[in-house]
């Protein structure tokens, strides 16, 4: 009786822990989703009358306790028109329907009141102003109009290129950089990881177990250490040599001798090699020994057996390794900062010009965009929401890549179900 009840208690404890984990994950996703999408929801333009007789026209950028921070028209520079107002200094607050906002090509926001000709006149009065889009009257929009603006801005964030780093424009270059980097890393790490796992699987003995434990320990090395290694080995070592041999005419301007996509992918491949090796080797170990014997008995060599039978049967494990590698690589920002990620890349690492993939180019990365927007932005009130948006996009990219691999793995599992049972 006592044993039974204590077992029940342990069950409830475990169930509670599982529920807490689930709740934490759901809360994180909901919160990240809300915080990441909020920057695209059009804020109303407010007109605030102050006790000293001034009026302010702008957006509410932040509300902290009794203090409002209003973003007014940024006539000189981006982030240069914030006003902090105490609630007791406000005598009137209104959202006039004729208030308009114009976003300039460098991300500056200009506010005014009136009809379209008035907006044009206001724009002409600002030197060097270059509107990226026609003026808008957000206060006149109903819910659906705001939703339209929201979807348009979110879509623009996805597909537009960056105007100014960490402040305005789209995350498209960072998105492309992240995806291309992960793909290139996968292309490099999978052959090496699988080959290493095959070797360790075939070789028994002291040396192999030494290598195995060394690889397992590599998984625990902090990622920044890989970054330093990549900088020293790839960028300054191999990259400098490549430049001397093949791009001597361009020196002293480095081609491969500075950080770039290829070096970053190689560094991440090093970083993720242990997880691939470990999971593939475990997958090979789970294959029933009868398959090996059956294949050898048919006159296959060990190599033929590995290539034609064991590796195909271990494909679910290969994909598990790939999933873990993608998860680790997409989350590693620290090493990238040393081997080629930049705030604002002049060109995408992939384009329509031969050879389409440009391994020596510096690139942008969503993870670095999060860091850059959150900590290195000259305008924190724009940077932090943008960091959330980039973080949300990064999570979506990682989840999408993983889901693709998981769907593929489950389809393979279905085929080999009896094997695993």
């Amino acid at each position: 009786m006592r044993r039974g009840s204590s077992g029940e208690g342990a069950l409830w404890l475990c169930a509670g822990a599982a529920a807490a984990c689930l709740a934490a994950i759901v809360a994180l996703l909901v919160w990240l989703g809300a915080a990441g999408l909020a920057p695209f929801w059009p804020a109303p333009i407010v007109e605030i009358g102050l006790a000293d007789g001034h009026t302010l026209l702008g957006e509410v950028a932040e509300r902290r306790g009794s203090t409002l921070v209003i973003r007014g028209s940024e006539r000189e520079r981006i982030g240069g028109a914030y006003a902090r107002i105490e609630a007791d200094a406000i005598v009137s607050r209104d959202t006039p329907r004729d208030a308009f906002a114009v976003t300039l090509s460098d991300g500056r926001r200009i506010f005014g009141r009136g009809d379209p000709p008035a907006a044009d006149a206001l724009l002409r009065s600002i030197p060097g102003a270059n509107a990226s889009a026609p003026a808008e009257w957000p206060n006149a929009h109903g819910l659906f109009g705001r939703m339209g603006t929201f979807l348009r801005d979110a879509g623009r964030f996805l597909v537009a290129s960056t105007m100014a780093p960490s402040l305005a424009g789209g995350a498209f270059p960072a998105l492309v950089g992240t995806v291309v980097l992960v793909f290139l890393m996968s292309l490099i790490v999978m052959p090496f990881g699988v080959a290493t796992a095959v070797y360790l699987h075939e070789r028994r003995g002291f040396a192999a177990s030494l290598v195995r434990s060394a690889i397992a320990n590599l998984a625990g090395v902090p990622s920044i250490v890989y970054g330093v290694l990549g900088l020293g080995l790839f960028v300054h070592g191999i990259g400098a040599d490549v430049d001397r041999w093949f791009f001597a005419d361009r020196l002293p301007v480095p081609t491969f001798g500075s950080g770039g996509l290829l070096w970053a992918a190689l560094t991440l491949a090093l970083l993720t090699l242990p997880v691939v090796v470990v999971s593939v080797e475990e997958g090979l170990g789970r294959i029933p020994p009868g398959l090996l014997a059956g294949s050898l008995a048919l006159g296959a060599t060990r190599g033929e057996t590995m290539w034609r039978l064991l590796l195909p049967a271990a494909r679910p494990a290969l994909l598990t390794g790939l999933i873990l590698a993608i998860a680790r690589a997409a989350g590693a920002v620290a090493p990238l900062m040393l081997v080629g990620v930049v705030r604002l890349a002049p060109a995408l690492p992939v384009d329509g010009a031969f050879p389409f993939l440009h391994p020596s180019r510096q690139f942008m990365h969503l993870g670095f965009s999060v860091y850059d927007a959150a900590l290195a932005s000259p305008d924190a009130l724009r940077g932090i929401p943008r960091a959330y948006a980039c973080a949300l996009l990064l999570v979506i990219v990682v989840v999408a890549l993983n889901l693709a691999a998981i769907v593929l793995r489950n389809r393979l599992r279905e085929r080999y179900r009896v094997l695993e049972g």
Partner: protein
Amino acid sequence: MATTMTAPDNVPGTAAVTVELPAGVEIALELRALSLWYGARQALDAVGFGVPARKITALIGPSASGKSSLLRCLNRLNDELPECRVEGEVLLGGTNIYAKDAIVHEVRRRIGMVFQKPNPFPLSVYENVAYGPRLLGVKGRRELDASVEGALKAVRLWDEVSARLDDSALALSLGQQQRLVIARALAVGPEILLMDEPASALDPAATLRFEELLHELAQRYTVLLVTHNMQQAARVSDYVAFLHQGRLVEFGDTDALLTNPRERLTEDYITGRYA
């Protein structure tokens, strides 16, 4: 009983076993003083007899008597085990498969093996059978189709699976799987089939069908079968070899050996008096 467990002095070595075969019996595989060590442990001790061609020879003997080890020696599967050492000769068509210039995978292609537990590959039914021919470099679809169909017909599986050749082989029943792996072995054109308790995982009905299949296969192939089941040995085999503690105790015609064994050990074993 205890005295029979330790090999008595009167158990003869190879030289003493007189393998009496009727004149004119063709020998497919001849074992000469075959000894096997796993590290320091000796598993086979100078085993020698001839396996008659296109007949079924049953290997019987108590557990750990070396039956499976012997079988694995005959297509050099023991090579894959570390610290395994073989002495003696196995003559296949007059050449020693343990000769220095013997090609191991060629030997294994000529001497097929069927394991105790059906081990279909996690591939389709078709690809299971086509695995061997593909190894031999057969690429033409028509040629592959023909050898797959031929092998599946030879094991009487064609009618059951011809409609689902692309389904996973793992979805077949155990009896079908065992016939499939035999078809897989036949597809590379072996001369000899080694079978390690091939019916032990099957139910009685499937066992019966399997034994019928064995008789058909013996028309074309030499079969060497390990079995624990004395009735099965009596039902299906033409010759019996009795192994005890790694030594060949007796070899002969099934009817003669099972009804009138010459050795005391054999008699104890087949009458069930062996502990």
